[in-house]
């Protein structure tokens, strides 16, 4: 599949819709990245940090009781076991090494739930770099613990009060900072979104998830999986686990978006399922917007999926039919989180619970012993306040 027909495009999606001021920085980034990805020293260094710092490879665990209950072979890719508790660190390690190669000393990032912000603050602390994280005021309120973690790690967390005061506005503000300080600042984006080359390089850094999964499932089950499920907000954990399987036509790939209170109710974050193509944050992809193109507020119980756009490669994979995209409601995700906790002793992030919830819905229709992999992209500690509130408990 020739996904990159035109430079920076996935089919008709992607591109570089940014102010002229940033074009030189994007060119430099692309040039640095293309040379780094063929540079053995760079790859060795990245591998070293992934292993001794992030804790890779993460296990592929066969969910014993759930497999039995569902009548399928259910495997969980344990990205929740990474340092900082989610897949985000795969990308921040890769990008911070790029920033070092480019001689940048200051890192800016956006964050929604705070997972990417924490992963960025963590790696910046390890390399002694200045770190500024933009976070919507609304998210700061919802994710106080992660805000505290970032500050403890030495990052400056800047509240964003514009627009809807969530991830999309934090992204605007991070880009504005980058435009202003482009000479000495590296913009460390957290998902497979934004202008080229970000969707490409974040995908490549996250593909370690799928590469390991492939090796592990062949070792344990002796064959490729029948289906892989992953949640999709911006879409980095999903692209990361899907990408090494895209050529394997027998492996069905399912991306699960946040259905919020249900698509009919209008309060959701399902850009691929309910949106249409448009331009936001530097790329053409599916978006949630009104008829004229003003970006709409979104909703999800999980802050990490609460975003009106999605990575352009997902838009391409949707149109080509290679990946099927489904939605799961807040309630279904919450139920899946509780179920995985009770049955397997693993409390997943609310984001990852969306992927599992879709499996629970579809398992009954699958042939017995179907081989299923779910990407548990993060752990649920950060969500305890939300989950408690939903179940009527005050922490």
């Amino acid at each position, binding site marked *: 599949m020739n996904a990159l027909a035109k430079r920076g495009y996935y089919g008709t999606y992607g*591109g*570089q*819709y*940014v*102010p*002229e*001021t*940033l*074009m*030189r*920085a994007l060119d430099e980034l692309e040039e640095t990245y293309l040379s780094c990805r063929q540079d053995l020293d760079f790859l060795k260094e990245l591998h070293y940090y992934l292993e001794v710092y992030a804790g890779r490879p993460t296990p592929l665990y066969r969910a014993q009781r759930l497999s039995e209950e569902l009548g399928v072979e259910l495997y969980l890719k344990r990205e929740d076991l990474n340092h900082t508790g989610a897949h985000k660190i795969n990308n921040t390690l890769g990008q911070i090494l790029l920033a070092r190669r480019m001689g940048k000393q200051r890192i800016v990032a956006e964050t929604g739930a705070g997972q990417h912000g924490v992963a960025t603050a963590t790696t910046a602390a390890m390399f002694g770099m200045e770190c500024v994280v933009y976070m919507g005021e609304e998210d700061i309120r919802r994710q106080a613990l992660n805000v505290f973690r970032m500050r403890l790690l030495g990052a400056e967390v800047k509240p964003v009060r*514009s*627009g809807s005061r969530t991830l*999309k*506005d934090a992204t*605007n503000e991070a*880009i*504005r900072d980058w*435009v*202003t*300080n*482009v*000479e000495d600042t590296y913009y460390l984006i957290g998902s497979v979104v934004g202008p080229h080359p970000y969707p490409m390089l974040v995908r490549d850094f996250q593909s370690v998830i799928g590469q390991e999964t492939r090796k592990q499932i062949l070792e344990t089950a002796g064959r490729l999986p029948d289906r892989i499920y992953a949640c999709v907000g911006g879409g980095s954990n999903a692209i990361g686990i899907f990408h090494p399987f895209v050529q394997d036509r027998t492996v069905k790939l399912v991306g699960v978006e946040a259905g919020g209170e249900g698509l009919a109710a209008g309060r959701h974050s399902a850009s691929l399922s309910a949106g249409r193509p*448009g*331009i*936001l*944050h*530097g790329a*053409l992809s599916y*978006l949630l*917007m009104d*008829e*004229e*193109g*003003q*970006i709409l507020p979104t909703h999800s119980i999980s802050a990490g999926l609460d975003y009106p756009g999605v990575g352009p490669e997902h838009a391409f994979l949707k149109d080509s039919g290679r990946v099927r995209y489904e939605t799961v409601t807040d309630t279904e995700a919450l139920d899946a989180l509780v179920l995985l906790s009770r049955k397997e002793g693993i409390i997943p992030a609310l984001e990852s619970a969306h992927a599992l919830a879709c499996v629970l819905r579809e398992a009954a229709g699958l042939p017995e012993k179907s081989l299923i992999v779910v990407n548990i992209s993060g752990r649920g500690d950060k969500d305890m306040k939300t989950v408690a509130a939903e179940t009527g408990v005050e922490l």
Partner: protein
Amino acid sequence: MKNKVAENFQEIKERGGTALIPFIMAGDPDLAATFTILPYLEKGGADLIELGVPFSDPLADGPVIQEAAQRALAKGFRLKTFLRVLAKNRGLVSIPIVLLVYYNLIYQYGPERFLAEAAEAGVNGLIIPDLPPEEAGGLRVPAEKNGVALNMLVAPTSSPQRIQTAAALTTGFIYLVSVRGVTGERPALPPGLPELAGRVKELTGRPVAVGFGISQPAQARQISSFADGVIVGSALVKKLAANACNSPVVAGEEGGAFLRGFREAMV
């Protein structure tokens, strides 16, 4: 088809002047106020008006213009309605009107249809802050066909090659972004701006208007000695915001007087 923006710059050049280009946000706080204010800008000495189209996520703009867009959207701004109202009221001013529009709004409208309807409404040119030359090729033909000038942006970080690419698409003026950053007032012009503007003029052979950060008549005077146009945005938007809600006429008078200060300072 020759466009009004290019003609306008030609005329100003022939009489040895510099274009004064005020920016205001359409629909801030509502369309009635916008159309009340416009004639005062022309009376205040504007040669061309840049009208911002409100967008929910204006990533090239600083706080003053972001808030202006939010105010307009909160009052229910619609691009289609705006074009209809503009068509009816275009006669209120005789100078060219250039729209500043983020690309998603054009993309959703359909570029061909947008250009036709904008031209029909009396729009003479476009500035699209998130559309670099790489992505702008598709607009060239419909813009040309409708006599709408494309005004590409050039930044201090643009390479000579990029500046020439921008020039090739530009049929009006080059919008020279004076600084690395977003729109908003700054106390002083960045060092090296005259040289940068000179370089851009030489490389492009197009009129060059300088924007971002210009808030004082003295800055406009300096710019008029080395560029073809001066764009005043945030400072004017802030000035208007004080009265636009209660009394658009007073806001217009004040805005006009504010511009007059720039006009008189300029060469």
